[in-house]
């Protein structure tokens, strides 16, 4: 075998291949997948953490949190935690980290926009060394969930510039980062929790899925993420759900997509099973809504639309009979390499649309160009567009989805109606089962009354895992891959 397998997992180094190099390891950018997957819970840690399986929040650097007033949350910190440089972790650090991530708009952190975009300013205080209080402008049942996105950094961290190589309390610290080549983390002695099984972890990155898979198969790496079914991971492949849902989002105000029958027809023309079996190699489940099971608000009662070209054709014909210009061309826009076989999937849809008498044109774009269609402000006069979107709800709560995609003024919404807007607004302050029911209703309403989306699949991915490593990926693995969970096989 290649001379490189000597350093394998047994030798104490865990070698991981990612699809891309993290642009930075700045903790406040941890909601960027490429950054978070390395930083979160490895280099830095949050106060609390959401269990991806149960959806419950679990203590991490905070041992307890309570809503002491409707707008005030109190967090009790874990004592005896130190940063990897030896400094003590105290409430002052926590305050500084929350302040920097949630309130600092000049820094424009990813987490800030992602999690705290709509919350308004937080007011922070540290009554003692192990207590932190957070006051919100309005009552916010989600605050602990939001805080779980904030990675703890030292109080003296820069508030004006982002930090490429942070110091955190996590089990690993950065040993070296040869930009473009390799990133090495090492475990350090003073970690408060269980010592990880691997003393060092090495990250590399390869864009091509086949190459990532080949590296694990060939013994040059122990773990490779984000593979497609065809990438050739072979018997090293381990399937895992990756939180993402793919869908076509319509501009509902332009012919022919302004007619709900046409949109329904399109929905029926998507051969979800076919795509998943033939293209995705069985990875993924047909989707019925924009989030996957396990997210608060998931509507169990909805089922994926069945593939029915005949019924679709009938709908199109009916619309045509009513004077809808069904032959008007609309664009299907996709982002290059957003998920494996995206081009082929769209191609299959387009061909089905064409057979039903619809006229669709495919356009694949790079990320930047595609975002102009996905995010407000949209491209003016773009014409009728069916945009392929992939949404991942990392937070596990529908609130992070519906406001964005369904509300008429949502940053990524091109449809909606007043009824739906009202329901979305009403659901926000609710908690518990009420919350679940309210959001489930939102999804149902969207599909029945608006149908701004045709869902494709709740995606799954493949991870290539060396036979010598013991690891069970979960729904969060794509965004946060805890090295501590990985162990050499006996």
């Amino acid at each position, binding site marked *: 075998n290649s001379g490189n397998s000597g350093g394998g997992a047994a030798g104490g180094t865990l070698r991981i291949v990612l699809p891309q190099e993290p642009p930075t390891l700045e903790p406040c950018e941890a909601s960027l997948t490429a950054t978070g997957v390395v930083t979160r819970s490895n280099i830095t840690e949050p106060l609390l953490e959401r269990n991806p399986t149960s959806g419950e929040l679990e203590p991490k650097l905070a041992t307890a949190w309570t809503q002491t007033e409707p707008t005030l949350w109190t967090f009790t910190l874990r004592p005896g935690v130190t940063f990897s440089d030896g400094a003590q972790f105290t409430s002052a650090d926590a305050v500084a980290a929350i302040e920097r991530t949630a309130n600092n708009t000049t820094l424009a952190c990813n987490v800030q926009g992602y999690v705290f975009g709509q919350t308004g300013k937080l007011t922070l205080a540290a009554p003692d060394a192990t207590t932190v209080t957070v006051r919100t402008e309005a009552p916010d049942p989600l605050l602990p969930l939001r805080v779980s996105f904030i990675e703890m950094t030292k109080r003296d961290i820069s508030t004006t510039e982002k930090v490429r190589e942070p110091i955190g309390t996590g089990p690993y610290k950065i040993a070296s980062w040869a*930009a473009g080549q390799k990133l090495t983390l090492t475990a350090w002695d003073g970690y408060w929790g269980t010592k990880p099984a691997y003393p060092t972890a090495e990250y590399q990155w390869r864009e091509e899925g*086949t190459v990532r898979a*080949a590296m694990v198969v060939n013994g040059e790496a122990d773990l490779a993420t984000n593979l497609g079914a065809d990438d050739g991971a072979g018997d090293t492949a381990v399937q895992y759900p990756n939180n993402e849902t793919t869908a076509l989002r319509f501009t509902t105000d332009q012919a022919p997509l302004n007619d709900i029958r046409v949109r329904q027809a399109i929905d029926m023309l998507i051969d979800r099973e076919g795509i998943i079996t033939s293209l995705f190699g069985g990875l993924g489940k047909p989707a019925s809504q924009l989030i996957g099971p396990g997210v608060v608000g998931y509507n169990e009662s909805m089922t994926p639309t069945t593939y029915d070209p005949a019924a679709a054709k009938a709908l199109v014909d009916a619309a045509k009979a009513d004077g809808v210009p069904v032959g008007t061309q609309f664009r299907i826009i996709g982002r290059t390499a957003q998920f494996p076989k995206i081009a082929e999937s769209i191609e299959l849809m387009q061909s089905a649309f064409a057979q039903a008498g619809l006229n669709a044109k495919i356009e694949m774009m790079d*990320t930047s160009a595609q975002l102009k269609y996905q995010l407000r402000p949209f491209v003016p006069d773009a014409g009728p567009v069916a945009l392929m979107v992939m949404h991942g709800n990392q937070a596990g709560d529908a609130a992070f989805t519906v406001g964005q995609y369904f509300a008429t003024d949502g940053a990524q919404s091109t449809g909606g109606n007043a009824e739906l807007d009202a329901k979305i607004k009403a659901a926000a302050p609710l908690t518990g089962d009420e919350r679940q029911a309210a959001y489930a209703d939102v999804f149902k309403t969207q599909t029945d009354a608006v149908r701004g989306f045709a869902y494709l699949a709740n995606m799954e991915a493949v991870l290539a895992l060396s036979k010598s490593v013991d690891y069970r990926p979960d729904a969060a693995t794509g965004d946060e891959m805890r090295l501590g969970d990985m162990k050499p096989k006996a």
Partner: protein
Amino acid sequence: MLTFLRRRALTSLVPLLAVVLGVFVLARLTGNPASLYLPENATAEAREQFSAANGFDKPIWSQLLDYLAGVTRLDFGTSLRTGEDAATMALRAFPATLQLAVVTMILACAVAVGVGCWAALKPNGLGDRISGMLSMTAASVPDFWLAILGIWVFAIMLGVLPTSGVDAGGASWVLPIAVLMVRPAGVLTQVVRGAMISALGSPYVKVARAKGAGEGRVVARHALKNAAPPALTVAGDLAVGLINGAVVVETIFGWPGIGKLMIDAILQRDFAVLQAAVALTAISIFVLNIAIDIGYALLDARVRNKSGATA
């Protein structure tokens, strides 16, 4: 020689500037990077703020002036993506590409000279025709295809080479270089063959033979040196192509080079890095061109004299 170099450098300055300006303008035509750098749910104000902070809201000419002012201080700006100094990033990535290009070109030349000379010694012979077909085919194989095939065969099926990366020492170089080499070697072989055929048929080769020179001496001392200039021109163009276009191979093999940096910068709309990388490659291409001219002059005394380099 010095005056020649100075003149060449001066005449190269204008195109160099044109390249930098062109990239600046073109890059900006590809849109504001704000949406890429801010999360999907960032507010419109946040995006505006981001643009203002990075100067993307100013009119393009004023951005250009700022940029040029920076460049005169050798400040190419900072990367949006990593916050690092753009020039540093480009300079860090460049050696990897350069090493790859240099080794590839050396090997491609060696192959081309070997096969080309061999084919030229018996023009139209069986060996010549076979090598002709092979070199033509080599010149028309898609590189990414070859790369993946190579990984599959040599790394996975045979397990003799690493799939990618730069860690495995010499072994890591084998596949990228083999893949990159194929086209230049194919093209160059054809050129060398043609040049050698005409050199071997020339009177001075006859004279050398009349002096009793053996075949080795004829090829090495007489023909090859005369066949070199046309091959040098083509090799130069191919090298430019390598410096400018090793993107695909660098991507597949995870080679931390400038091509990969450039394509990432393009896709990420990381203007500063893109400009720095383009400026660096443009400079290196101009340097390469000058080096080729010098090589020409060294190879061929006539050129040297014409350009007034020696006196």
